[in-house]
Each structure stands twice: as C-alpha cells, then as structure tokens.
C-alpha cells in the first residue's frame, strides 16, 4: 500500500462526510441506469430490474469491500461491530446479565486475592533494601523460656564483631505508663538502638532524629512519638517538641513526631525511646534483633557466622543456659508466616471460583452460539467473510470482557475493603495499607489478563466453528432442530462435572470451617461470656502492694453497690485477655528436672471471680470471705493440674506449694485462646499473695442488663478512686471473644459465601446446558411420545444424560476433597478434615443443586406437546 493511500485513508477518517458515505446512492444510480438500459433493449420491467441486479453481483459484498478500502485498521468495521454487538447483547439482557455477573464474581474474587498477595508478598517492602533485612532469632536451650529474643550481651558481641551485616539494630518492646499529660495511659513502647532509624529509613515528620548522645547513659532520655499518639493526645500541636512525658515515671523529652503508616518494627507502638543498656540487665533476653545483610551475603552465611560467634562466647556457660541455635530469617517471611498460608488458601479458593466461571462462560456462550448459527449462516451467504464473522463474535466477547472486567474490578475492590475491615490490626494489615493503593497497575493488569483469558478462550473457541460452517445445512436447520454434536455435548458434560466437583470441594471446605467456627463459639469454654463487662487496669508505676490491694477492695465494694451488678471479679489474667502468667511448681516428692520443668498457669483472683465468670467449682469449694489476707493460705486448681500432680490421690487438702492447701477443683477453661486447651493451672486469692506480680490487672462485672451500659459507671468509679490509674480496653466479654476469632470468622464466612456462589453458578450451568438439550431434542421427545413413551420414560432419558456428569462430578469432588481439606487442617477445630458427615452433607447439597438446576428443563421436557414438536420446523 502506498503512502498516498495511507494519507487518503487518514484523511477519510477525520473528514466529516467520507467518500464512502454516498456509496449506496452511487450504486443505486448504477443499478437504475442498467435497469433503464435493459428496459430500452426491450425487457419486461421486472426482468429488467433483476437482470441489473444479476449483472451487478452481490451488492452488499461490493459495498462492504468498497468500505473496507477506506477502513484504516478496520476502524470502520470495528465501530460497526461494536454497535451491532451492543444491540445483540442488549436484546438478550438475561444472557448478558448472567455472563457479566459470572465474570464479575470470578474476576472479582481473583482480583481481591491477588491484590492481597501483591500487597503482602510481591510489592517491595517499605524499608530501604528491604529484601536484605532479616530477623535474628535466638532459640534458648531451656524449654519453656520464650524463644526468639537476644540478650544485650549477645547483641553487643555480635554488633562489635560484625562482618556480615550492614546494620544490626535491636529493639526492646514493652508497655509503659505515660503520665505528665492530663489522663494517664498505658501504651506500647519501643526502645530502639541507634541503627534502627537507618534500617527503617524513617525521619521524624516533625522535630529531629536521634543523635549519638541520646543513647548515652546519663543524658536526658528522649523519645519520638507516633503520629497516632500525637493526634490523640496533643491534637496535632506543633509545639509538642520539647515537652516532657513521664514514661513509667522517668521524665522523657519529646524530640519529634514519627510519620504515620509505619509498618516496621511494629504498627502498635506509640513511643520510640533511645535504647540504653543497663549493666544489670546484660543477660536478660529482651531484644528483638534485626540485621540488614551486606550485599552478597546470604542469610545462611550470616546464620552460620552468628551461631559460631554465639557458641564461642557461651563456651564457659552451663549447658542449659546456652543458646540452642540462632536463626536468620528474611523479614518478609518473619512478618507474615501465618498470613501466607491464609493467602495461598484464599487464592486457591478464588481460582476454584474462576474455574467454575470459565465453565459457565463456556456453557453460556456455546449455547448462544448454537442458537445464532442461522444468523451467522445468513450473514455469510450475503457476503460476510468467515474472518468478519469471527471478528464480530470476538467483538461481542470483548464487549462482555470489558463489562466483566469493570464489574470484576469493582467487586474485587469491594472484597478487599471488606476483608480489610475483618483483619485485625497487624503488620499484615499495615502492609496492605501502605503504598498508594492496594489495587495498583499490576493488579489491574492481572484482572484484565484473567478477563481476556476467560472471554477470549471461551468466547473464541466456539466461534471458530463458523469458519467451517456448511451454509446450506445451517440455513435449513432451525435452531430448535439443531442438536449438540457429539463433541459439544461431551464438552458440556465435562464442564458440568467439573463445576459440580468444585462446588463439592468448596462446600466441604465451607462445611468444615463453619463447623469449626461454630464449635469454637458454642463449645463449653468453662465460663460464660454474656452480660460481662471487662476492663484492663494496668498497675501504675508508682503503685505499692498495699495501695493496690486497697484500690481493688474499694473498687469491688463500689462496683457491687451499683444496681444490677451481680458480681465483680478481679484477676491477674482474664481469659483471652493476652496476659498469661506461669510459674514452676515442684511436684511433691520430685526434684526439678531442668529439661522438663512443670509449668502451670497462675491467676490471682478475688472471692467472686468464679461467680462473675460463671466458672463451676467441680469439687470442694471456691474462694470466699474466709480466704482473706489473714486466713489460711489456700488454692483452687484445675482438672489438668489435679490429674498431672495427683494421679492416684485426692488433691483436696494436699499442699500445692509449701503451706498452701488445695480447697477446690475447677474445670479447665479456654484461657489463652479458644482453640487451645488449658494446661495445668491454679488460682490463688490475691489478698494472700505478696508482690505486685500478684496484683490483679483486670476487672470483670457480671450485670443483669446490657453490660455496655455499665461502661461510664465503671470509668467514673475508677477515676473517683485513683486519678492516676490508666484504663485500657473497656469491652464486653463477647467482644473480647469475637476479637479472638476474627481470622476464623473471616475465613469461614468467605468460604461459605464462595461455596454458595459455586453452588449457585453450578445450578445456572446445569440449567443452561439441560435447557439447551431439551429444546434441541424437543422433536425427538415429541416423536417418542407419539410412539407411546410415557413422561416417566422421558424423564429417565434426561436423567441418563445428566447422571453420568453428576456422578463423575461427585466422585471427582470426593477425591479432591479428601486431599484438599488437609490444607485446612490448620484452621479446623474439633473436626477432622475427612469428617464423614460433612462430606455426606456436601455431596447431598451438590446433588440437590444438580437436581434443582434440572427441574425447570425437566418440566419443560415432559410438557412437550408431541404434535407441535413433531410439526415444528
């Protein structure tokens, strides 16, 4: 093609009236002239007309070819195809809606899953050279001692001999009480080494960085505060720099405000304080250590070096005090270990939904294309080329694809923000929240790719058949008489089987997760959660033991005086409250075995604690007024402790510790988490204990009416007793319980929704295929009926068609379920992954779905009127 023609076409594209606009008129004039000439040569008038047409040939074809001459990149035809496609889709709103909905669900689910994966696993971490940042964990030899943290001595030794890391930073995390501003508060505090700021790459939003002097003992302690804290406590006052906070009574100067959206080292801390090492704490394991590897050094190298260095430094120590090993883990893996599995599971489920969507798309488009065969044949016979027809169908598929992508994208965003709401506060959530948008260009590209894959693959495949269509046959055949070819019908059946299998698997998974979740909520926890209001009352820094005891006695007295308060309990560690103290017990007549220390959880409570929480006393008695400060020292133990320590004797009356008699046995309760059994545990009256460690941290009120209504009264009473008492987390016990199962709830509800979707889509799929089968075989059914077949036999005929797919689907689903649900075992509670009842239920629902999808087509089949069907053209 010469440049001149390109130019002409380009001109034509922008010119208002294109040279082709009057083509129809030109051709009409041509035909009239020819007709007239024919008339003049003596032809009869109608003959003259037809002769002119014959002489001209195919008018549409000539017109179309002439237009194509001007079409640049077929833009002309494209807009024509698009307009035609829109009209056709508009004429079948049902088909269009179902298709777009299908795409929206499939693409939406996958976009959402991919958004999360992208945010958490693929996007660069918000740390300089984040891929080289590692977490260094120290695993002690002694079992029971919390693993992971390093002692200052270890950290300093590594830092001073370091050859493998660019930076080695240490962080000590704790809670601290802040006073010096109107309302005292307990917040999370990070004490950070000088390297941390560089490792994280943050500078204060306001104020200055830490300086070298800030880390020296003897200078004024300084801190950076979080944006959140700045907003909450200082209303974004820019004059905050230089003010003094009392952190656990230590005056500390604010030197700046940290930027918001910090993901690392954690998301909750409100204060960063310059870390100083006190000589007396050199061996306490209290530091989280992070290192940025030197370029070219692998985590394995660094780990080997750290282990060597540690072993050399500890060679003098007794063996049981030594470090078992040191591990170096890339920070990303350390930050998201649990969530990675969850994400993979979610994307697996999303992929299943996509498969179902593809199957449905394919079924829908196949049925539709078969119905349009005549239209296509007609267009082909008036001069449309095969390529043109395929292009037309492709255009329609692309229109669906565009609509589906848009809908899917919106659904995906919606799903992300929904699940975001479900997520508990964590680094995982913060990672998702950082950056501009979860749904970035990569996610968009992914959604479009998926969409193209589904529509083009499943839209194009059926349309290819038109290129080798027998026009004659296609035109003669009415769409109703056209039945599925062997290949098509087999494909449809495979698709049905696949849909049912996936629905089965998802149903099994959903069944297991929902039962686990329900099991957690409804199981016997050992205590009740309704009508309970709880609050955490951290021990003020300046507190004394006597003051503490007095405070709680007054508190209990005043709270009990409030009408409708049934019981008031106080305790060191509330169930699911996140505080669990343990202590070593010596078994009677046994020496301590350092390898296997008998740990038991300890809780110091008041007399009414069991009553407030509804914990039954199984044997003996609970605490009462006899067990006061001056009474005989007593203890209540749980069943596990009783069984472990006194397997062959009655524990009642025995000594738990020297001088402390056991007076009662209570059941094991769900103390740490709903899904973990309580180990050995015991309760002591807080009055009888010395030391602040035994002082209660929580108060819990059993009320007659809605517990939330008691929150203001609770706050008022506490304030009236002690202005300096920090109050955190006033919550109902139901809320506490709910928070502890957030992840499970999210997973169970997601799975349930997706399984329901899968079932719904399968019903639609079966309905579609079977409807088509019935309408295409209406004539055959009619003939059979004429020959005496009864309705029952017609139904059997249909059932035979369907049952193979259903049985195949169920078997495949069963096989996959048995393997795939293993992946769920981590989230299951009190149920086996191959729970037979769940599998039977899933199979029943799947079969019911198949039945449901086939009801309408079956009714249509038996209502076929033999006479009409046989005569039907």
């Amino acid at each position, binding site marked *: 093609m*010469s440049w*001149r*023609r390109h130019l*002409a*076409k380009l001109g034509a594209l922008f010119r208002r009236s294109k*040279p*082709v606009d*009057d*083509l129809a*008129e*030109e*051709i009409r*004039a*041509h035909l*009239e*002239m*020819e007709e*007239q*000439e*024919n008339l003049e*040569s003596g*032809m009869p008038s109608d003959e003259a007309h037809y*002769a002119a047409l014959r*002489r*001209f*040939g*195919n*008018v549409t*074809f*000539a*017109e179309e*070819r*002439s237009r*194509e*001459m*001007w079409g640049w990149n077929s833009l002309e035809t494209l807009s024509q195809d698009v307009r035609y496609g829109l009209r056709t889709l508009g004429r079948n709103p049902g088909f269009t809606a179902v298709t777009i909905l299908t795409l929206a669900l499939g693409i939406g689910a996958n976009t959402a899953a991919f958004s999360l994966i992208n945010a958490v696993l693929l996007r660069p971490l918000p740390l300089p050279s984040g891929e080289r940042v590692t977490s260094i964990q120290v695993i002690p030899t002694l079992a029971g001692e919390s693993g992971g943290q390093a002692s200052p001595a270890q950290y300093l030794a590594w830092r001073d001999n370091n050859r493998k890391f660019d930076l080695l930073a240490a962080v000590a995390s704790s809670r601290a009480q802040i006073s010096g501003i109107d309302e005292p508060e307990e917040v999370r505090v990070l004490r950070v080494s000088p390297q941390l700021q560089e490792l994280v790459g943050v500078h204060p939003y306001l104020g200055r960085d830490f300086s070298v002097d800030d880390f020296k003992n003897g200078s004024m302690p300084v801190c950076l505060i979080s944006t959140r804290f700045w907003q909450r406590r200082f209303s974004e006052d820019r004059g905050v720099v230089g003010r003094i906070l009392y952190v656990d009574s230590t005056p500390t100067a604010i030197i700046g405000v940290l930027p918001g959206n910090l993901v690392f080292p954690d998301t909750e801390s409100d204060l960063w304080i310059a870390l100083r090492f006190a000589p007396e704490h050199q061996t306490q394991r209290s530091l989280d250590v992070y290192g940025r590897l030197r370029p070219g050094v692998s985590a394995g190298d660094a780990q080997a070096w750290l282990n060597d260095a540690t072993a050399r430094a500890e060679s003098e120590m007794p063996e049981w005090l030594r470090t078992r090993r040191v591990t170096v883990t890339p920070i990303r893996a350390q930050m998201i270990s649990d969530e990675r599995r969850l994400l993979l599971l979610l994307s697996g489920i999303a992929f299943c939904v996509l498969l179902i969507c593809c199957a449905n798309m394919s079924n829908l488009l196949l049925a539709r294309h078969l119905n349009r065969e005549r239209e296509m044949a007609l267009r082909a016979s008036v001069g449309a080329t095969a390529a043109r027809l395929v292009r037309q169908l492709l255009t329609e598929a692309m229109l669906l694809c565009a609509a589906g992508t848009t809908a899917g994208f919106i659904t995906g965003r919606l799903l992300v923000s929904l699940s975001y709401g479900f997520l508990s506060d964590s680094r995982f959530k913060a990672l998702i929240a950082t950056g501009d948008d979860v749904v970035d260009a990569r996610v968009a590209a992914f959604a479009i790719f998926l969409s193209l894959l589904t529509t083009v693959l499943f839209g194009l495949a059926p349309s290819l058949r038109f290129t080798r269509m027998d026009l004659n046959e296609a035109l003669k055949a009415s769409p109703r008489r056209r039945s599925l070819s062997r290949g098509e019908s087999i494909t449809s059946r495979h698709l049905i089987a696949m849909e049912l299998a996936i629905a089965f698997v998802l149903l099994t998974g959903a069944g297991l997760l929902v039962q686990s979740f329900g099991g957690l909520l409804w199981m016997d926890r050992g205590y009740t959660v309704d009508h309970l209001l709880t609050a955490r009352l951290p021990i003020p820094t300046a507190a004394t033991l006597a003051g503490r005891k007095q405070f709680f006695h007054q508190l209990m007295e005043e709270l009990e005086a409030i009408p409708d308060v049934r019981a008031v309990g106080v305790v060191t560690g509330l169930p699911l409250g996140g505080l669990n103290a343990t202590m070593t017990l010596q078994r009677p007549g046994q020496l301590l075995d350092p390898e296997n220390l008998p740990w038991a959880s300890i809780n110091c409570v008041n007399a009414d604690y069991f009553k407030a929480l509804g914990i039954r006393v199984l044997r003996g008695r609970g605490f009462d007024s006899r067990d006061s400060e001056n009474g005989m020292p007593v203890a209540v133990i749980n069943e596990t402790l009783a069984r472990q320590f006194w397997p062959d004797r009655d524990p009642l009356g025995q000594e738990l510790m020297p001088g402390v008699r056991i007076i009662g046995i209570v059941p094991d309760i769900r103390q740490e988490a709903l899904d973990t059994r309580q180990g050995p545990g015991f309760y002591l009256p807080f009055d009888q204990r010395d030391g602040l460690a035994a002082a209660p941290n929580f108060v819990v009120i059993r009320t007659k009416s809605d517990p939330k209504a008691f929150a203001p009264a609770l706050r008022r009473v506490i304030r009236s007793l002690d202005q300096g008492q920090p109050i955190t987390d006033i919550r109902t016990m139901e809320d506490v319980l709910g928070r502890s199962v957030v992840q499970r709830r999210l997973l169970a509800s997601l799975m349930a929704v997706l399984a329901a979707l899968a079932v719904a889509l399968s019903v639609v799929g079966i309905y579609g295929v079977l409807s088509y089968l019935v309408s295409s075989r209406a004539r055959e059914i009619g003939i059979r009926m004429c020959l005496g077949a009864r309705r029952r036999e017609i139904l059997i005929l249909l059932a035979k068609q369907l049952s193979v797919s259903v049985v195949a689907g169920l078997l495949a689903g069963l096989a996959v379920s048995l393997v795939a649900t293993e992946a769920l075992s981590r989230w299951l509670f009190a149920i086996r992954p191959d729970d037979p009842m769940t599998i039977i239920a899933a199979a029943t629902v799947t079969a019911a779905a198949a039945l449901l999808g086939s009801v309408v087509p079956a009714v249509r089949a038996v209502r076929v009127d033999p006479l009409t069907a046989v005569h039907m053209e």
Partner: protein
Amino acid sequence: MPKQQSGDRIELVYGSLDMLILRTLRWGPTHGHGIAKSIERMSDETLRVEHGSLYPALQRLQQEGWIIAEWGVSQNRHRAKYYRLTAAGRRQLVAETSRWERFVRAITGILQPAESEEGQ
C-alpha cells in the same frame, strides 16, 4: 438481452481492472455504470466485469490519487458520481500499459510454439 453463455466471456486477470478503468477514463470523465459498459463494449463483450467489483477498485484508485470523483448529472438526468483521470493517473496508465505490453509479449513468446505445433 439474451442470456450470455458463460464460455463466451473471460474473467478479468487480477490487477488488470485498474488499468482498464484508467484507460476508459482517458476518453473523459464518466460514472461507474459508464465505465462498466465501455469496458464491455471496447472488448466486444468478451471481458466479463461484474459491475459490483468495479466499486472497490474505484475506491482504491481514488486513494492512490489517480482518479478523482465528483457528483454530476447523467444524460438521462440521473444523479451520478463522475470519475476523472488526474495527471498522476495518466502517468500511471502509461506505465501500466507498457508493463502490460511487456507481459503480453512475454506470454505470447512462450505460447507461440505451442500454437504452431497445433497448426501442423
């Protein structure tokens, strides 16, 4: 018009239609129907042109800039589009014609012996 026997007419060789149109327009501007008729007339009705196939060719020639079109009124007072040869079209016609002649000479050269054999 009596129905033509299909054997009497020869289908156009691909590409030769452009040349024939240009050649026709050398006698002056005319419309599509006129071009079709004159091609048939000039070839003593031997060449069979499906009138419809003329129009894509006319669009192509316009794009190349060899002809231009404008609306006019025919002798029978039909509104019709008249095509006119441009200077570029004239040059193209000369070039095409000489190319065609060479082509025909070559083909004839090859076919000559066969004909003489047939004559013997």
